[in-house]
């Protein structure tokens, strides 16, 4: 399973971003191998409809769960229709901590 984590820096010490779509980087984490990679968010500065476009982009990467501090109304609507799991961690949690919690 691949999980996408919204974050503002491209290293594992960064905390989870409070916004799902308006963040600078996405960390794609493979829960089986614990391998991860970062992709830059091309829609970061777009004005409208960032959420649904980001969901589309991430689905192409094959994700089945997303982690972010908060999800907007339209995003929740699209994610539920696409059957994607949403996870909201404690705001101070870093990516490294999430990787450590994987079993």
């Amino acid at each position, binding site marked *: 399973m691949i999980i996408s984590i919204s974050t503002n820096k491209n290293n594992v010490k960064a905390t989870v971003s409070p916004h799902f779509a308006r963040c600078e980087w996405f960390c794609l984490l493979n829960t089986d191998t614990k391998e991860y990679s970062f992709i830059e968010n091309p829609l970061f500065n777009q004005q409208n409809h960032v959420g649904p476009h980001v969901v589309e982009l991430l689905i192409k990467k094959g994700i089945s769960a997303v982690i972010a501090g908060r999800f*907007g109304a*339209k995003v*929740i*609507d699209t994610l*539920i229709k696409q059957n*994607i799991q949403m996870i*909201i*961690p404690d705001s101070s949690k870093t990516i490294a901590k999430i990787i450590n919690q*994987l079993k």
Partner: protein
Amino acid sequence: MARTKKNRLIQMAPHFNGFKPQGLHHKSNSEVIINFEEYEALKLCDYELFTQAEAAALMNISRPTFTRIYESVRRKIAKAFIEGSQIVFEGGNVNVIQWYRCSECDIAFTLTDDTNPHCPLCQSKTITLNS
């Protein structure tokens, strides 16, 4: 008999129970009850800045119904502000999207498949429904 109300879809219930006025000399004895559909209407319209038509579609209700709910919550908030009443979030005809909690990982999450509920990070099966 009155027609039963259609259930409104709520994405996440508020994580606290309400508001109390500050600096009252004696305890305020009146309270204003805001139900969850009103909370959601206010959130979609004034916090996430959707138009009323978009917000109504997200809550699975018609635009006039949404306007009625929104009007009602604004009046209630104004009443509580002016009279110094407590605000309590309670009740309503709602379907809330279910969020679960895993106490070990300190996360809240939704489930995509109900047959085998478990925490997505630590795989533990001891999860609780967040209410």
